[in-house]
């Protein structure tokens, strides 16, 4: 039987090709993202092993805050170096620093972007424990000298002896470039930039005099790394809150931290690759269903000559197995190409990953082929069982093409699923968990897909009405063809439906978020201009800039707002830091209770919902621990609604702290009677000197902030584009099979006078109707999902929902175009139908 299956599989090359195509598409993205993640991971493994090659031990503070976006750790006092150097077994020790510093190129523009790879400032040391190797020139000495990594020097067109401007925590300064360095063996890790100084300069300029981020230690070889770390740890002052790690440990930790950060990205990709795979499943299932129906006579003949039901079913499953393995292997190979494309894409947007070729793990291929094969065989089970049930007599009959089964049970199951989903959605609208919301959405989607065949006929007939009116009998046949096989139409349209529903829901969500951002900023920001950076958490605008701006004659008032990681109660959020002394009338938190004016360093403001949730009222005590480990009990002084972040504290709290504090936004109110041009010129003079920050008017600023959502949306659109391709391929496959199946019909039509162009028209409109069916149901489902998500994630209820009309029209037009494109090849094939052989094949 296996051999027969194999023979029959190979004999039907066209069918084999079409089925494989669906599997290839589904698996290639999975393999692409897997290879890509593996490549990234092994790259960083290699990089940090190389960089920490000479580091045997690592001393750092025990105080840290982990916000979920990477850990922030308190600085260590440089004085401890003397203690460490005296420990037996230590041959060298040096301070290490990775703080924010932005190098300004010769043309006055900063090197590196707010959202690109980080821009670092660090320590260059002659110690063999240091991470940097001088390639050209010499090490910087004193407050006036610096060194750059080779890549940044090249980007900024800087040569040794040039004067370089750098912006960091304590403002902007000029340095003389005295050397160019390599990080380990490479010019720069991951496209990051490095400005390097001697230790005292680095501490004072980048962080706080007398402090470094950590201490790198090299042993003299007499002790093992573990013993060395133990010995050092024992020698450290007990109250210093320091810990010692071995070289292997810090390598491991750094690598895994980078992997965690990149993990968001790869997890995102993986999620979408599974969406693509799921959509691919529909296409695979559809192809097997159609081909199983088409070879009903073949199956019946097998049964008539003595094959058992099981044998017929197994033969189709064996075919699925063969096609599954074949398609997955090709899909895996295609994925290699895709992962290259992903790398190229990342390079193009500036996130260079210093890859040395692709890393292809053996489990990437195992995973892809296994998943691909399993889903193919699973998709084939139902059609195979159906094939087995074909009575032997069907061999003598004409193939029954239009099997109209009872839809009652289907509708019942679908409605139950939708109802169950709706219960989940309703619960989440009333404040249930986000997981319930997800399950609810899933339930409704599944229900709609189950009910699809019941919907496809009436909807296709309705959508086909104008076509029929416009195109006469040809259009009417398109309409009938789209509606004649409701299950097939529903399955073919399913990828379009899912893709469109997701796009619509995300678009609706994004539109609502944008609206909210606009309203929120609109009510909180009362000034004329905003200077902003887009790098919450790492670096930003030095706090001294606000003072510089206030001193300008053109500026009436300026206030900075920053964000900083801190422990608040049992959470580790980013906390909003503002200056209550200058914010008045310029930055308004929309207080619900209490006042923001005159907030002291012993007080905290809490977002109204958060306060409710955490049971905080005016007068409650909240414990706040900053990154440097300093813990304070703050009193709740009020609640607010409109701001980023759930907690707001005064800048005063950071006076004397070793925690680096930057501003993310500086809001500016110009003096009366100052023209736009004069105001911009004056403010730009300060901001350009910094090489950081974007200066925008109030309206521009609000637009930009709202537009940030578009970037996220663009990413989702880009990934969903893949499902569009799968949808197109799915329609092409179905149409080809339908055209093949209706060979005699098309032959007859041609015989009685249908021209080739009419045949094309007929196939094209069938395709368009099918695609539009998916799009229309998808849009409806997407909008409903969007409403539910917005309402359940948002407190302002339905009013927060914004119907994305433009996008909806765009999607419907897109679906129309998809239908037309998908029909091109099948329609051409249809016109090539040979009349004689079509009629003769009785």
């Amino acid at each position: 039987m296996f051999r027969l299956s194999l023979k029959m599989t190979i004999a039907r090359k066209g069918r084999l090709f079409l089925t494989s195509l669906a599997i290839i598409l589904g698996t290639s993205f999975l393999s692409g993202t897997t290879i890509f993640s593996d490549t990234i991971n092994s790259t960083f493994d290699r990089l940090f092993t190389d960089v920490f090659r000479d580091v045997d031990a690592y001393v750092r503070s025990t105080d840290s805050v982990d916000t979920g976006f990477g850990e922030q750790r308190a600085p260590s006092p440089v004085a401890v170096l003397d203690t460490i150097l005296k420990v037996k077994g230590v041959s060298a020790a040096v301070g290490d620093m990775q703080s924010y510093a932005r190098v300004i190129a010769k043309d006055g523009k900063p090197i590196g972007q707010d959202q690109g790879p980080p821009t670092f400032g660090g320590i260059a040391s002659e110690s063999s424990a240091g991470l940097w190797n001088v390639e050209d020139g010499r090490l910087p000495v004193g407050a006036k000298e610096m060194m750059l990594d080779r890549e940044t020097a090249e980007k900024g067109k800087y040569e040794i002896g040039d004067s370089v401007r750098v912006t960091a925590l304590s403002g902007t300064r000029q340095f003389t470039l005295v050397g160019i360095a390599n990080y380990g063996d490479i010019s720069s890790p991951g496209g990051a930039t490095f400005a390097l100084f001697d230790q005292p300069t680095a501490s004072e300029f980048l962080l706080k005099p007398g402090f470094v981020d950590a201490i790198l230690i090299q042993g003299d070889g007499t002790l093992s790394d573990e013993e060395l770390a133990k010995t050092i740890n024992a020698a450290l002052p007990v109250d210093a809150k320091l810990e010692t790690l071995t070289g292997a440990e810090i390598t491991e930790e750094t690598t895994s931290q980078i992997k965690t950060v990149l993990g968001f990205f790869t997890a995102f990709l993986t999620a979408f690759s599974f969406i693509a795979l799921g959509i691919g499943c529909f296409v695979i299932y559809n192809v097997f269903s159609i081909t199983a129906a088409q070879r009903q006579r073949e199956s019946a003949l097998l049964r008539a000559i003595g094959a058992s039901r099981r044998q017929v079913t197994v033969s189709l499953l064996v075919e699925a197995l063969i096609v599954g393995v074949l398609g997955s292997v090709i899909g895996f190979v295609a994925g290699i190409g895709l992962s290259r494309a992903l790398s190229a894409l990342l390079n193009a947007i500036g996130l260079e990953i210093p890859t040395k070729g692709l890393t292809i793990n053996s489990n990437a291929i195992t995973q892809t082929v296994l998943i691909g094969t399993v889903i193919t065989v699973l998709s084939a089970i139902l059609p195979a069982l159906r094939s087995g049930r074909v009575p032997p007599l069907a061999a003598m009959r004409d193939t029954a093409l239009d099997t109209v089964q009872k839809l009652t049970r289907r509708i019942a199951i679908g409605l139950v699923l939708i109802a169950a989903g709706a219960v989940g959605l309703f619960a989440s609208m009333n404040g249930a968990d986000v997981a319930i919301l997800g399950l609810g959405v899933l339930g409704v989607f599944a229900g709609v897909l189950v009910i699809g065949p019941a919907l496809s006929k009436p909807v296709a007939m309705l959508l086909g009405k104008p076509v029929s009116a416009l195109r006469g009998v040809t259009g009417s046949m398109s309409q009938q063809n789209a509606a004649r096989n409701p299950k097939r139409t529903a399955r073919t349209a399913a990828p379009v439906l899912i893709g469109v529903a997701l796009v619509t829901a995300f678009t609706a969500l994004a539109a609502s978020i944008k609206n909210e951002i606009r309203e929120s900023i609109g009510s909180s920001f009362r000034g004329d201009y905003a200077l902003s950076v887009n790098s919450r958490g790492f670096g930003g605008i030095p706090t001294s800039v606000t003072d510089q701006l206030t001193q300008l004659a053109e500026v009436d008032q300026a206030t900075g707002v920053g964000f900083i990681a801190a422990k608040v109660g049992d959470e580790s959020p980013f906390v909003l830091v503002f200056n209550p002394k200058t914010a008045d009338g310029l930055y308004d938190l929309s207080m619900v209770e209490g006042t923001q004016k005159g907030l002291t360093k012993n007080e905290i403001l809490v977002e109204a919902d958060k306060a409710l949730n955490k049971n905080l009222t005016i007068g409650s005590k909240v414990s706040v621990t900053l990154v440097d480990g300093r813990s304070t009990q703050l009193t709740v002084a009020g609640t607010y609604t409109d701001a980023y972040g759930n907690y707001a504290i005064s800048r005063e709290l950071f006076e004397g702290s070793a925690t680096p504090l930057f501003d993310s936004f500086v809001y500016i109110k110009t003096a009366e009677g100052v023209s736009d041009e004069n105001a911009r010129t004056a403010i730009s003079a300060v901001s350009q000197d910094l090489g950081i920050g974007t200066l925008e008017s109030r309206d521009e600023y609000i637009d930009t902030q709202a537009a940030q959502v578009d970037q996220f949306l663009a990413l989702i659109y880009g990934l969903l584009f893949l499902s569009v391709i799968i949808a197109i391929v799915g329609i092409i496959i179905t149409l080809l099979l339908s055209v093949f199946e209706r060979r005699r019909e098309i032959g007859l039509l041609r015989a009685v006078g249908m021209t080739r162009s009419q045949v094309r028209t007929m196939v094209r409109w069938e395709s368009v109707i099918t695609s539009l069916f998916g799009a229309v149901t998808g849009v409806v489902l997407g909008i409903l999902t969007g409403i539910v998500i917005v309402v359940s994630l948002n407190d302002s209820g339905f009013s927060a929902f914004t119907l994305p009309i433009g996008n909806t029209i765009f999607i419907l037009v897109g679906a129309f175009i998809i239908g037309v494109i998908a029909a091109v090849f099948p329609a051409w094939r249809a016109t090539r139908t040979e009349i004689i052989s079509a009629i003769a094949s009785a």
Partner: protein
Amino acid sequence: MNQTTQVTQKIDLANVAARAESASKIYGSGESEVRALDNVSVSFERGKFSAIMGPSGSGKSTLMHCIAGLDALTSGSVYIGETDLSKLSDKEITKLRREKVGFIFQSFNLIPTLNAYENITLPLSLGKSKGDKAWIQQVIDTISLNDRLDHRPSELSGGQQQRVAVARALATRPEIIFADEPTGNLDSKSGGDILKFMRRAVTDLKQTIVMVTHDAVSASYADRIVFLSDGHVAGEMTDPTPEKVLDFLKHLGE
């Protein structure tokens, strides 16, 4: 061969609905060459019911397909009325089939998604023409299917389906109707009905029909039979009876 050529030339050209001149159809080449039609010349008179007979592989279907413009000749020419089909493009031939030719096939004559009436008027709708309403009604009356017009093919019996096919072939009032074994799939009662309808279409409605068949009884409904054997015209017969036909076929086989 010469004899038959002379016979055809006796027929008045103006009264010819379709004809073939030195028509050859060759499949394959070299060793595997098959001459389905070998230099066949034949014509079919307007207003008559003609039959083409011959054993399997005699080339009778090929001849019909080529004259009807469904297939192209290797050499020679075919005419529908005065139109030389070899000079037409695919689009023009399609238009000609739609307007001047009617077809009745052995099976699968109807589009399953269209009802009986839509199937009957299909060639007209494809040409975006309304056709002659009175004529169509007359045709429908003739095949007595008035009460079945809104039924889909799957709701009609085999005989009813073939009657709809006959009506479809007549609907455009074509120059000529080709029928390829129209009763091949029917029981003898339904088959007889179809043949009677076709006979009436010629006698009462003045239509022209050419029917391919291998059945002597069916052929006996025709005014004239052309016999084909191995791609050649092997003879012809006017006013046939089943006995005469069987007798002729017996001799043809020898």
